């Protein structure tokens, strides 16, 4: 997992409440054998005018010109500004996979669905929850100025706006530690690599047949 420390990035809007995981990545893409490559199909039904199929080249598909992510001014965005209950629906990890693959490293919204919120941390995406009125203000500022960027500092737990305003945010310490160091569950377990090796050493002596194929 990529560590998340500080970033400065262009902000794009997803200006509706209750965006569910099917909207983030429609179900036909779940048959994939991969967890990467979902970026072109992020918000597929909103982004394109035709129905997307797995494995299809998206570069020639008709774009929905009214969908903000297709506006020239939001190209290259890495911060997604969203509304209440973002990521509701299923537990599939494909949703954060798709957001991350598209290039979003940080989401800012008033609230999130639980499992989605957890899954983001597991996949190197920082979901920040702020008061609804602050989120609303950020939406207005973003709409008012093209090229609107936010600076996010996870260590200090602050967001800095272009005007220099500093907004503090909460993040649970364990999760912060994992994100800062790029540790997923596997990363955390691997911090105990010495203990695992010591166990193997001992077992190899006690139960050598477990380590040698005799066929």
């Amino acid at each position, binding site marked *: *997992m990529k560590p998340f420390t500080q970033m400065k990035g262009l902000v794009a809007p997803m200006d509706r409440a209750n965006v569910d995981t099917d909207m983030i990545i429609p179900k036909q893409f779940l*048959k994939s*054998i*991969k*967890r*990467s490559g979902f970026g072109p199909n992020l918000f597929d039904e909103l982004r394109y005018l035709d129905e997307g199929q797995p494995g299809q080249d998206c570069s020639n598909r008709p774009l929905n010109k009214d969908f903000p992510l297709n506006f020239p001014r939001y190209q290259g965005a890495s911060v997604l500004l969203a509304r209440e209950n973002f990521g509701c629906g299923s537990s599939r*990890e494909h949703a954060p996979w798709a957001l991350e693959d598209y290039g979003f490293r940080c989401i800012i919204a008033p609230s999130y669905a639980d499992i989605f919120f957890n899954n983001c941390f*597991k996949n190197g995406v920082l979901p920040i929850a702020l008061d609804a009125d602050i989120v609303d203000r950020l939406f207005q500022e973003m709409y008012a100025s093209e090229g609107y960027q936010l600076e996010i500092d996870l260590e200090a737990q602050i967001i800095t706006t272009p005007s220099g305003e500093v907004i503090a945010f909460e993040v649970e310490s*364990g999760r912060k530690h994992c994100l800062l160091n790029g540790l*997923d*569950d*596997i990363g*955390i*377990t*691997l911090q*105990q*690599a010495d*203990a*695992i090796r010591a*166990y*193997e050493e001992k*077992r190899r002596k*006690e*139960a*050598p*047949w*477990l*380590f*040698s*194929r*005799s*066929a």
Partner: protein
Amino acid sequence: MAGKTLYDKLWDDHLVAITDDGDALLYIDRHLVHEVTSPQAFEGLRLASRRPWRIDANLATPDHNVPSSVEERVAGVDGIVDPVSKLQVVTLDDNCEEFGIEEFKINDARQGIVHVVGPEQGATLPGMTVVCGDSHTATHGALGAIAHGIGTSEVEHVLATQCLRQRKMKNMLVNVDGELRPGVTAKDIVLAVIGKIGTAGGNGCAIEFGGSTIRKLSMEGRMTICNMAIEAGARVGMVAVDETTLKYVEGRPYAPTGENWEKAVAYWKTLRSDDDAVFDKVVELDAQDILPQVTWGTSPEMVASIDDTVPGPDDFAEPVRKAACERALQYMGLKAGQRIRDIQLDRIFIGSCTNSRIEDLRAAADVVKGRKIASSIKEALVVPGSGLVKRQAEAEGLDKIFIEAGMKWREPSCSMCLAMNSDKLGAGEHCASTSNRNFEGRQGFGGRTHLVSPAMAAAAAVAGHFVDVNELVGGAQ
């Protein structure tokens, strides 16, 4: 201090560390891999530039998507018609190649359903922790091992760290004592257990199956029982090690030999619950009370004896179960009070990780030998659990017995157990199946599954409806 259960002993022997948040880090000796739940785990390894922690702890084989028909199989992977199935099998091949993991590929004689292959090869052994991205991994507990299914993110975790983060389960003992009646098999025992404790009966528990009846069962019978621990709500099912276990394991390709064998046996002999061990839950069954079982509903706990009638909503007190019964009867197209023996069948499926081993096939062949399946049966499939089971059955002439009876003899795969290849039930069709799940649509959209033993499935094939196998084969064991 009270003694330890078998589960306690195995747990303690595999404990690497306790993490800050109270999870245990448990060492995994054997990781079995198949094509459905592994692609994203391998992909995760690649994305994070990780390698498997211990390559020789992994063993792979494709099973779910592998076609069972001889025609589709001759061309190997290229012959798989469904592109999604094919891609999963190809991906497993590629991943095993890339990471150096041993794989029994599609037409290797050792290929088969992962839960048949593991014990058959001696790749799963007593005293091991065994995991696989498949809930019927409990099967391997028959050898005296902790074995259970895991999700895809855990598959990746085991590949990368050889460990699993876990909380300890509770201990449950299911004791079956006494002499089995003729025609009653391991499958009937486990269905009766599930009927008694329900599909949530073993939630949060590791079930140890014990008692004189279980001790007398062959290893294959014990595997059938542990296989369905998951249908009783328990992720783990296990049986203590005894002489039967040791005899089964000796001489298998991956089993230890020479000095290592002696050492292993000395340890394995300790793998039983202490006499003063305390279980959180104990359930007792008398073997004499068990008759051949048939499920009538859409959950494995909806089970009855061959002499019974189909129950109705009024037979259940709780509203939830009343409603479940009503819905199940509707889906299954059955009426309350109808005799189980009057259920007419369209198809027969003998196979799956529950009942596709050589003894299962022998039991079925015994029943159909010299007989023909009923003309009303559209198709009766016999699908051996592995290439080696198939070879053994053919050496014994079982394939001929099935074919002469009008059944189809297929190539090893999961086949109609979950209908991921082209073997499926049509809507409304009733199937006597030796598999483990009778959920709505499990064997095909609208299909109606009745879970039974191989002997009962064979008897049903001959009669065209359910029948007590003893009426066909006097005193069959």
